[in-house]
Each structure stands twice: as structure tokens, then as C-alpha cells.
């Protein structure tokens, strides 16, 4: 278990014709991973899963976050959340605590055209790597498609 404080949470969602649809996950320092995916599309229902991961998993997650250098970035100039959606990324590592908000990012083009392409690009790729990390864990442990198609 990492000795310093550690926490990460990511949320992406929007409110639209199918209600409040979102995906959210968090890792706590004690290894608890919680994952929720609420999609009303095609009568999908809420998926909520939790499992405790090992210290090795937490350390790898921490490595990915640290190598991204996201902590050095700032969401000040990132696109605001809007009707299309919102993303939140909250990370605590040691004595650093970030809680970034921005809108949904459709593609790299949105990144390039933003006021802070370098910072937003780091966020854009980190979020994809984090989702991939969580999906791998959830998929293998629960044998579900975390995107929600086979439930």
C-alpha cells in the first residue's frame, strides 16, 4: 500500500433525452475500486461494481498518473462543461490535490483548437489510459463489458 495519501476519481456524463447518463470510477488508498456506469440507451440499467485491488495495481496506477505529469497542469483555460457533457478528474497524491473540470472532448481536434492544447492533450490521453486500466480490471474480474452492452 502506498504510504502517502492517494485517491483518484474520474467522472464523465451528461443529462439528455435518456436522463443522467454517466460513467464514474474511483480508487481509494486502501485499494477499493468502485465503478459505475449508467446508460439508459436501449433500456440499459445501472452497472455498479466494486472490488479491492492489490498494492501492485495501485502502484501501477500511480506510475501512470505521475508519468503523465497531469498534476502540473491546470484546468483554468480548458473548455467549460456544457450541455454536451462534463468531465471531472480528481487526484490526490501525497500533498498534491487536483480537481479538474472540463467539457467532453470529442477528438484531438477539440484539443488542438482549445486555449491550452498542451495541457488538455495530457488530460485527454491520461483519461483514455485510465479508462482502459479500469475496464481491463472490471472486465476480467466480473466478466462484463464495462461499456454496458452485454448486461
Amino acid at each position, binding site marked *: 500500500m502506498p504510504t502517502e495519501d492517494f485517491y483518484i476519481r474520474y467522472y464523465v456524463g451528461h443529462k439528455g433525452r435518456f436522463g443522467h447518463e454517466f460513467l*464514474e470510477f474511483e480508487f*481509494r488508498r486502501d485499494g477499493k475500486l468502485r465503478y459505475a456506469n449508467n446508460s439508459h440507451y436501449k433500456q440499459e440499467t445501472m452497472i455498479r461494481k466494486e*472490488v479491492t485491488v492489490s498494492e*501492485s495495481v495501485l502502484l501501477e496506477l500511480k506510475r501512470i498518473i505521475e508519468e503523465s505529469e497531469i498534476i502540473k497542469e491546470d484546468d483554468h483555460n480548458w473548455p467549460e462543461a456544457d450541455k454536451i457533457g462534463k468531465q471531472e478528474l480528481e487526484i490526490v497524491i501525497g500533498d498534491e490535490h487536483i*480537481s479538474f473540470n472540463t467539457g467532453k472532448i470529442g477528438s484531438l481536434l477539440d484539443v488542438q483548437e482549445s486555449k491550452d492544447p498542451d495541457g488538455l492533450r495530457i488530460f485527454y490521453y491520461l483519461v483514455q489510459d485510465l479508462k482502459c*486500466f479500469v475496464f481491463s480490471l472490471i472486465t476480467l474480474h466480473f466478466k462484463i463489458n464495462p461499456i454496458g452492452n452485454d448486461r
Partner: protein
Amino acid sequence: MSNRDDMDEGQGRLRSTVNRTDQSGRRVKGRGFGNTKDEEEDRYGGKFDSMEEDETTGPIRSVEGWIVFVTGVHEEATEEIIMDKFNEVGITKNLSLPLDRRTGFVKGYALIEYEKKEQAEKAIKELNGTELMETTIHVDWAFHGKTEGGSRRGNTSNRGGNNRRFTRK
């Protein structure tokens, strides 16, 4: 579990991203510290499914097998190379080898599923600390029971987050 600690950390209603220090002494940054909680019920309410028994300690079984977590994987490793190595100790049922989304190279970790616990145990015992493509790999369980032999402190008082929908119980 009380979520009082959730509430008192969210006091900084800063719209800007000025660095400041919160009560725990952390440097905080970002627009999320002024979040409203209007979506909290949607996002938090309800029960989370789990495979774990309350009293389980040590590694736990996944739905169809036992998962080991490998780190230190070379960025040019392939599924075939990993499978060759991990099939030495038992037949692998599944492999997940995620790529770095920016570079397209292997991100550095892999998840491997064995049908039997003994196979996974053997992988951890025999392959942890060995070399694969001239880098040292680490092999460990991916999942544990909620309490791990007393080595985890049940600290819930000093976690991060001012708007953690999940952490209330």
C-alpha cells in the same frame, strides 16, 4: 460511515484555479472545488455489486478464474511473448495487454487469467522478478479481499476529494 469529512473539504468556492492549501496541508488546484452536488443522488445512490465475501482475506477469485497483474512489461512486448512466458506455469485463459493511447506502445502492465488458483500462485512465485525482454517484470495478484491480513490500515479519515459521491456508505 460519516461523510462529514467530505463536506468540510469542499469549502473553497474558488471559481479560479489559484493554488491554495486546504486543511490537510495539501496544495489544491482546479475548478472542481466549487462543484455543486445536484447530481449526487444519481451518481451515488444504490448498491455496488461485489464478488467479495466480507471476511475474505488474501487473493480473491474473479468470475471465471484467478487474475494476476504484471508490471514492468516492455513497451514492445507482444501478446504472444507474454503468453509464451505465462503458459510455462499453467494454461492462461485470458490476457489483457493495454496500449498507451498516445504512443501505441504497450503501456507497461498486463492482466492474465488462470483457471486455477494454483496456477496463478505458481506464476507469482516463479515469474515475479524474472526478466522478460531484458526488463524485470513483477507479478502479483490483481485482487484482494476487503481486508488483507491486517496490513491495510482502515484509514477513511484522510482521503482526498471534496465531492466524492462514492465514498459515502
